[in-house]
Structures are given as structure tokens and as C-alpha cells.
């Protein structure tokens, strides 16, 4: 199980990096498009479609990365005041189960969207005329992977619950306090600033 999660983490990180690269590429295509527009009154066309697809795909793959790093926002005003550890664990399970259900519904009906595009052979509206099934398949794969990760986490949390190992459960799916969240943000900034080459 632990190995399975390590693999899932690696895949979702990879997905996030590729998704980010797609976004970066989309931004560069847009810049080229703007330059051509003003220099030669030309347009490649479809830059907006492409960046839309980049957002859809990268966010679908990002859902699981955010879930694994517990970055999805939860309002923990009540949570932190709950004394009972068992009750907190129950809230964590409930939160994750809702996410799995939400993701499952989106993925289920997302499959329908993909199927529909395949049946009606839809293409993007702009000049590139890309078959919609290509971006939608990548998008759906991200959603399906998210559901798999959510179920995996749910199974691991359930096992931890059965072992009565609540610490493990909190490590896996507990709510991250806002302060911890802020500290992560800061360490990212500090880390980035440290990279300054010393003269």
C-alpha cells in the first residue's frame, strides 16, 4: 500500500510538472500569436483553445497532487476546536469521502463528455481543428487518476483506523492548519530567494 502511494505520488508529481509545462508552452504560443498579430497582422489561430486545454488537463492532474499534499482548502475553524481525536478522524474521513464522491461523479460524467466527442467526431472551433477527443482523453485520465488516488487514500486511512493508528491517519488525510500552510508558502519563498548567486 505504501509503495502504491509512493508510485501514485510520483505519477501525480510527473503529471503536475507536465501540466505546468503545457501551461508554459501555451503562454509562449500566445506571445508568438500576439507578436505575429502586430508585426504581420497574422494569426496562428487556436492559441486560446490550446491554452484552455492546457488549463483543463493540468488542473485535472493537479487535483491529485493537491490531494496528496493535503493542499485542498478546508475551513478548520470548528475542526481545530474539536477535542476528540476520534471525531477529528471521522471529519477527515468524511471530507475525503465527499471528495472521492465529487471526483467520481465528475469523472463518470466526464467519460460521457469524451464519449460524446468521439461519437460526434467533434473538433475544436478554431483553425487548428484538433479532434476534441485528444485533450479530453488526457483530461479524463487526470480525473480518473484523481479518483484512484482518493480511493487509495481512503483505503489507507480506513486501515489506519482499524489499526487504531490515528497519527498515521492524520498524516495521510488530516487537515493542515493554516499556519502550517503559511509556513510552507514561506519556505518556498525563502528557498527561492536563497538561490541568489553570491557575488
Amino acid at each position, binding site marked *: 500500500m505504501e509503495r502504491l502511494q509512493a508510485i501514485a505520488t510520483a505519477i501525480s508529481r510527473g503529471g503536475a*510538472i507536465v501540466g*505546468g509545462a503545457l501551461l508554459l508552452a501555451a503562454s509562449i504560443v500566445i506571445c508568438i500569436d500576439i507578436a505575429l498579430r502586430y508585426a504581420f497582422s497574422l494569426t496562428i489561430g487556436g492559441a486560446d483553445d490550446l491554452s484552455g486545454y492546457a488549463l483543463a488537463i493540468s488542473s485535472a492532474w493537479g487535483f491529485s497532487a493537491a490531494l496528496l499534499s493535503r493542499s485542498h482548502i478546508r*475551513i478548520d475553524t470548528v475542526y481545530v476546536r474539536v477535542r476528540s481525536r476520534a471525531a477529528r478522524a471521522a471529519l477527515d474521513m468524511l471530507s475525503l469521502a*465527499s471528495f472521492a464522491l465529487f471526483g467520481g*461523479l465528475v469523472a463518470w460524467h466526464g467519460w460521457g463528455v469524451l464519449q460524446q466527442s468521439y461519437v460526434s467526431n467533434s473538433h475544436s472551433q478554431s483553425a487548428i481543428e484538433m479532434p476534441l477527443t485528444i485533450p479530453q482523453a488526457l483530461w479524463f485520465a487526470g480525473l480518473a487518476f484523481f479518483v484512484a488516488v482518493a480511493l487509495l487514500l481512503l483505503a489507507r486511512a480506513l486501515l489506519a483506523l482499524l489499526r487504531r493508528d490515528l497519527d498515521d491517519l492524520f498524516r495521510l488525510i488530516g487537515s493542515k492548519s493554516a*499556519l502550517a*500552510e503559511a509556513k510552507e508558502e514561506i519556505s518556498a519563498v525563502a528557498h527561492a*530567494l536563497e538561490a541568489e548567486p553570491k557575488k
Partner: protein
Amino acid sequence: MTAAISLAVLLLVLGSSIAVAAGMAMVGLILNQLYSQMPLTRMLGELTWSTTSNFILTAIPFYIMFGEILLRSGIAERMYNAMIQWLSWLPGGLMHSNVGSCALFGSVSGSSVATAATIGVVAMGEIDKHKYNERLFLGTLAAGGTLGILIPPSINMIIYGVMTDTSVPKLYLAGFIPGFILTVLFSLTVLIACMWKPHWGGEKIQTSWEERWRTLPDLLPPLVLLLIVVGAIFFGLATATESAAVGILGALVIAAWRRRVTLTMLREVCEGTVRTTAMVVAILVGAFFLNVVIQTIGLTQQLARLITAYQLTPAQVLTAVIVLYLVLGTFMEELSMMISTIPITTPLIVHAGYDPVWFGILLVLLIQTAMISPPFGINLFVIHGLRGRGTLSDVEIGSAPFVIALLIMIGLICVFPDIVMWAPRVFG
């Protein structure tokens, strides 16, 4: 009745610490079950695809990525040092540089947390060096950081614009003057505090004109980026999304010039961008679904009828909404607060006769207030975390004067709506 039950369900679900994105979807499912025959869940696939592949929304990851690169480009430290030269002669010294740097960095960054964290990291070392009143100093950073979402570009304005069909360029235009006035108000707050208690202002910092001219070029990169990113929108050369894309390129060029671009750096930028984007997008998808349910079951009309029935004047509606946000803002995470309430409050306010652009700016000011009002204020946490000593209440106390400045600002735009509306009317 529906309204009361819906609100109760929303508060119950979000209060029980279910992840906000999933929570909103669950509320949508519950309301759908209770009040509508149509299985609206069937729309989830199409809704998610069309929302997430929306070109205007790509501005969100672009601004996030722009900020991530900017952060790693090292422009913040140099900018801060130049600001010291130019602003620290005022009573309160460096604290004015804090506010000024936040305003300038905020004018290229679309996020308040990033602004507070970036300027905070650079400034934190100066407290002890110059014997400032620590609390006030921390307050300038927490409050100054919030300028990130008021001065364009602003991720919050894009989300508001997309959710309410309001023009993002108009919101940007509208944000500038209030952003400038608020910066001055923050500085005035420091000035008044330090004239009242001069020892709060720390030791005087030696500056010279020679130094000032020498450091002036360090203020240029953010100014140039600002001109590219915001200027392009104002002159109609590019859309908000396109200009964000240009911003990424500009930031990359600056980072490359400072020799900061490496493969590791790019990988970190990509990963960080996607994780933050996914978190925002997840909440947006949940909110869009809830929005559809709310409209289908006729909740907004019901609320509007309620207002008519009680014969509330526009001013009363506005006051109620402002109070609602001030209360919610104390304990709710700011982004979730904004996204989960917009579908309900905006139609009400527009129904009462207020301009959606104006309300967008008011909303941003209310979110800024929420960010520095205890017990939950994300910027308080960021600054406290940065400081690594003392208690959170130091930051809270230090930020209190700036909460007052924000409330004054909110009052100002309510009394003189033209502060907001003049620019979009003239240039829009």
C-alpha cells in the same frame, strides 16, 4: 424557507471541515435532491470541461506562474533596497518602504499571500537592526501584502469577473485609484502612529541622493512588467489572459538576465503552479455546480423577493452584505468565502441597483480586511510564520490600525463611488 435551509446546509457542510470544493458540490447535491426533479449531476461532466477549458480562466494559472517566476527572479530584494532609499526619510522609516514595496510588488503580482510572503522575507531582518516597534512593523507587512489583490492584476478580480460576467479589464481599471489611495492611507497610518509615539519609528536610516539615483534602476523591472502586463490591457492591445502570458515571458527574461533560470527552478515553478491552480479550480467547479443548482431551484429570486417584501432600501441591503462579509471574514478562509458567496450576494447587490464593477472592488476590499482580521486571516499567519518568534497576537495587534484604514477606505468608496467608477467610465 428554501433560503434558510440552503444557508444552514452550506454552513453545516463547510463548517464540518469538508474540503471546500467537495463541500460545495455536496451542498449542490443535497439541494438538488430536496428541491428539484431534474438530476443536475448529469451536467457535471460538461460543466467541468467547459469551466476548466475556458480561455479567460487560463489567466489564473498564468498569473500564478508569473508570480512564481517573479518570486525566484530576485527582483524583490533589489526593489526593497531601492524603496528604502526613496521612502525611509518619513517618520516611520522602513515601514513606509514596506508599504511601498508591497504596493509595487502587488502591482505585478495577483496574489496577497505571495506579496506578503515575498516582501516579508526581505524585510524581516530589519526589525531588530533599526529598533522598530515590532508589532506595527509586522502590521505594515500583513496589511501591505493585501494590496496584491486590489492593485491589478488580481486573481480575485478574474474569478469575480468570470463568475459574474463582469469585464475583467474594467475591474482592473477600477482597482487602480482605490489601490493608490489605500497605499497612501496605510502610509498615513504609520505616519500618525509614529508622530504620536516617535520611538516606534526606529532609528534613522542614512540615505543620500547619490544612493537614490544609483538604486533607481532596481525599481525599473517591476515598473516595466507593470507597464507590459497592465498597459497592454488598458490600451486594448491584449486581453487579460494574453497579457498574463506576456508577463510570464517578461518575468522569464528578467530571471534569465539575473541568471536564475535553471531546470530545477522551472520544474518547481511548474509543479507549484499546477498545485495552486488545481486547488482554485476545484473550488470553482464546486461553486459553478452549486450556482447552477441555486439558479434552478430559484433561490436568488426568492431572496430578491424577500428584500422587496421587507422593503429594504439599497443602502440597507449593502450594509447587510458588508456586515455579512466582515463576520464571515473573521473565521472563513478568504478565497472560499469569496467563491461560495458571490453567486448569492452579487445578484442581490445588482438587483438593489449597484454597479457590478463597483461591487467587485468593494468585495476585494472586504476580502483584504478579512485577510488581516483575527482569528482567521491568511496574511496574519504568513507574517507570523515568517517571524518565527513571539505570538500571533503581536501581528493581530499590529494589523489593527490597518483594519481601521481599510474600513475607512470601504466607507470612502460607499460615499464616493466615483473613486472606483471614474477610471472605467473614462477609459473603459
